[in-house]
């Protein structure tokens, strides 16, 4: 007993000291790594404040090309597949954080002076436009960008398109049958009284998908006011505005709602992953679409690796990875194989979507959405 209590105190001290060493090593990605690059790294002078940091892994040091942190906006499994493939190809230890596009933009703003990410991959181009306007991105014209059509990249090289997706209606066939409603093929079909509480979309403040849907109304109806009139009517039938863009598709898959307004490729993905009752349809008045972007972040801690990432994601080979994890976005590289499950853009009417204008109006529109739509009585 006498000996034990001092032991307790020293044990705590020990634990705290161990923490200093244990935590950074635990922060490395769990995947096994070729240790070959480690010795080539010069001793870093980062974080001189802590004595036990002598053994810090290079993750926190201003290294050139041994690590990469990706801000990833598409579905989690695609993020994983991409970072794994890149790591296998280059030996660069690649980790990612998946954030929906609104969150991603917020996180970049928060870390403006000291970015935690080097490259941003995926998510609609309008958020990239907003990020460019706020000075969060660094221009980089990849040699591989030449293959990408001009309409799918920023002329100054602030962002480059990596995939294209069209917004659609994702319907649960069984629920529609029970309600006696036909598969919707017009925006006005969603206003059907029988669909009360049977439609869901995400909240435009946190989701790029939802913002695309809102901006599509602006383009299609010709003005912001007309768009809000439509959204107010639609609000009567909306069950919930979710945080993440694809979540309404999962609600449809669970049979909680009849129709989700999401990107059609997400709907096909869910259908393939165990919800065969899901069906895609497109509004005949025209629908919005997204160009998924990739961009170098200003002040990136790992600029070399980030540029390698951008070069790589523009190749046909990298763009074919999506389909292997059932992410059926259309590749932007014309040489990449297109999956049969992907949408044929030739069969869908697209609205004339102005990414620059959409990106600029984002803040005003999301605030107006919150003030006018979310509180409106049903």
């Amino acid at each position, binding site marked *: *007993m*006498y000996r034990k*209590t001092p032991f*307790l105190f020293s*044990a*705590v001290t020990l*634990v705290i000291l161990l*923490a*200093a060493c*244990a*935590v*950074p090593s*635990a*922060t490395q*990605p*769990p995947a096994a790594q070729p240790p070959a690059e480690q010795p080539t790294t010069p001793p870093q002078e980062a974080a001189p*404040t*802590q004595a036990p940091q002598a053994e810090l892994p290079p*993750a*926190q040091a201003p290294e050139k090309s041994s690590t990469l942190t990706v801000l990833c906006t598409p*579905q*989690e499994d695609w993020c*994983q597949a991409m970072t794994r493939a890149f790591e296998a190809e280059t030996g660069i230890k690649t*980790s990612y954080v*998946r954030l929906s596009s*609104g*969150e991603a*933009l*917020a*996180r970049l703003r*928060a*870390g403006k002076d*000291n*970015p*935690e*990410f080097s490259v941003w991959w995926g998510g609609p181009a309008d958020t990239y436009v907003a990020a460019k306007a706020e000075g969060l991105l660094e221009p980089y014209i990849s040699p591989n960008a030449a293959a990408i059509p001009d309409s799918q990249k920023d002329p100054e090289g602030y962002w480059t398109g990596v995939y294209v997706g069209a917004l659609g209606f994702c319907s649960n066939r069984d*629920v529609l049958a029970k309600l006696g409603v036909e598969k919707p093929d017009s925006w006005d079909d969603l206003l059907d009284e029988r669909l009360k509480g049977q439609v869901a979309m995400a909240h435009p*403040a*946190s989701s790029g998908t939802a913002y695309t849907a809102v901006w599509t109304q602006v383009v299609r109806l010709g003005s912001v006011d007309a768009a809000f009139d439509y959204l107010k009517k639609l609000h009567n039938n909306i*069950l*919930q*505005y*979710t*945080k*993440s863009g694809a*979540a309404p*598709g*999962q*609600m449809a*898959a*669970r*049979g*909680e709602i009849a129709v989700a307004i999401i990107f059609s490729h997400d709907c096909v993905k869910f259908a393939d992953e*165990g*919800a065969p009752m899901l069906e895609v349809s497109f509004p005949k008045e025209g629908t919005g679409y997204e160009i998924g972007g990739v961009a170098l972040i200003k002040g990136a801690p790992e600029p070399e690796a980030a540029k390698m990432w951008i070069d790589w994601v523009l190749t046909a080979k990298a763009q074919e990875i999506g389909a292997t994890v059932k992410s059926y976005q259309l590749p932007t590289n014309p040489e990449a194989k297109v999956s049969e499950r992907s949408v044929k853009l030739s069969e869908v009417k697209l609205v004339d979507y102005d990414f620059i204008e959409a990106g600029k109006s984002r803040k005003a529109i*999301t605030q107006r959405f*919150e*003030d006018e739509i*979310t*509180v409106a009585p049903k």
Partner: protein
Amino acid sequence: MDASLGPSPLSRARFLRSFTHSLRLLLRDSSLLIAFGVAVAFVGIAVLYPLVATLSRAFSAEGAAVLANVLARPVFHRIILNTLALGLTVATAGTLVGFLFAWVQVRVAAPQWIKRFIHTAALVPVVSPPFAVAVAAIVLFGRNGLLTYQLFGLRTDIYGLPGLTLVMTLSFFTVAYLTLRGLLYGLDPSLDEAAANLGAGRWHQFRTVTLPMLLPGIASAFLLLFVEAIADLGNPLVLGGNYTVLATRLYLAIIGEYDLTAGAVLSVLLLVPSLALYLLQWRLATSASVVSITGKPSGRGRLITDKRATIPLVGGALLIAALVFLIYGTILVGAFVVSLGVNNALTLRNFEFVLVGYGAKAIIDTTLLSLLATPVAALLGMVIAFLVVRGKFHARNALDFGTMLGIAVPGTIFGIGYLLAFNTPTEVLGITVLPKLTGGAAVFGGALAIVMVYIIRSTPAGLRSGVAALQQIDPSIEEAAVSLGGSRPTTFRRIVLPLIRPAFFSSLIYAFARSMTTVSAILFLTTPQTRIMTQQILNETDAGRFGNAFAYVVILIAIVLVAIGLLSIFVGTRTGAEREAA
């Protein structure tokens, strides 16, 4: 102790010996002083500083503009009303359920297995992340719910206030149950007996004797639940639907807009009712002890055996307990099927997703950080309890209050406070005392900030159980030790700590469970280098991948249960006296 003071004509050797002795005494006594200093410094840095940072941002000129804007927009009036309505319904329902459980447990004649069953049901929510219930509730009672729709054909709308009330009542009633159960056990049954002897019926007795004595306890449980309900973030995020409350709006301000000023302003709106009610509760809880002045309960009262009363009471409690187990059963089953209720094929895919991807890292990080926070929080709780109960200085009440703020303040506010306070290196008089703790390039990938939050959130419970334990120990035991020549730290180590070992043990368990299940306070503090399980669960839930979320929850609960098992083996619940005997 004073013998060594003052010069006396001693030989050099004796003087030297005496000098080192007194120095050692001073050092040993000063270790208590150091303990006090450490406690004050920790509370000051980890609790008060972030709060001050939030307040000063909210009351800056920029904050005033945001506040004016917030108060002018009708959407925020709705949000504030929603928040209060949610607090009210959850506090009412939770207190009722807690009271029912406590009453059946203490006052009703029922088979022992039934009592154990409902007791366990009341404790299960402690070891699971609070919003796990919400996810299961969608599967069970949602639009296409297993029970509501597929069994009974009802199209219920669980998103919004009714659903939130249901899941938050089931997640939080434990607080009310434990408070009221303790109070009921402590009530002197002779008062009831006196009333019965005077001819009062059971109901009359309950209304005029028992209930008035319980009122302060009931009020205190109600207020605690109210504070917990308006502070909760996970459940409203998952199940709120279009029912926005302050906590979720605050979350959107940070996550969707990264507007720290708006976050700080909304924090203050949330902080005012939370703190006011918490203080009211504290006053009530301390005044409630007046009741027990009648002395220790003189034996157990008669249990209720009247079938007209026992059947509805026990039946009601059993039904709710069954509901709790049904929900956790749903989580367990849901972890092993493709999509519960839609595609019930058995699969290990969910666990594969969790264990193969970044989930493994989240599991390791979270467990490791919780393991770090646990001993510190428990020990800090005991030390502060000792200082508060036995200390003879005025600052002790301030220290007590400051520590309790760690739990009285909603977690989201600490999240914002930490971002505001620690996003740049902390400097005192131009000297850097703390490096950058949050955001990009934070030390240890932000892990230090997370551990600090874990500690401040779990120390208050340790403090309270330590205070309760110490108040039962007659100070004369310590005085005896001191008059036999033991210094205060020696007394603390050899007399006090062994005597309060059970309290120490329970606060270790609490600290670990609390850390593993914390959501709202750490959501803003995770970084690419540090992943936390509760956040991953929330992500999976939000993306609609419920199977993965369930798999995470199952693993999390398993880790907590294993840790509790290991703790009871290594620390043990025996007091020091029992150890000496062994």
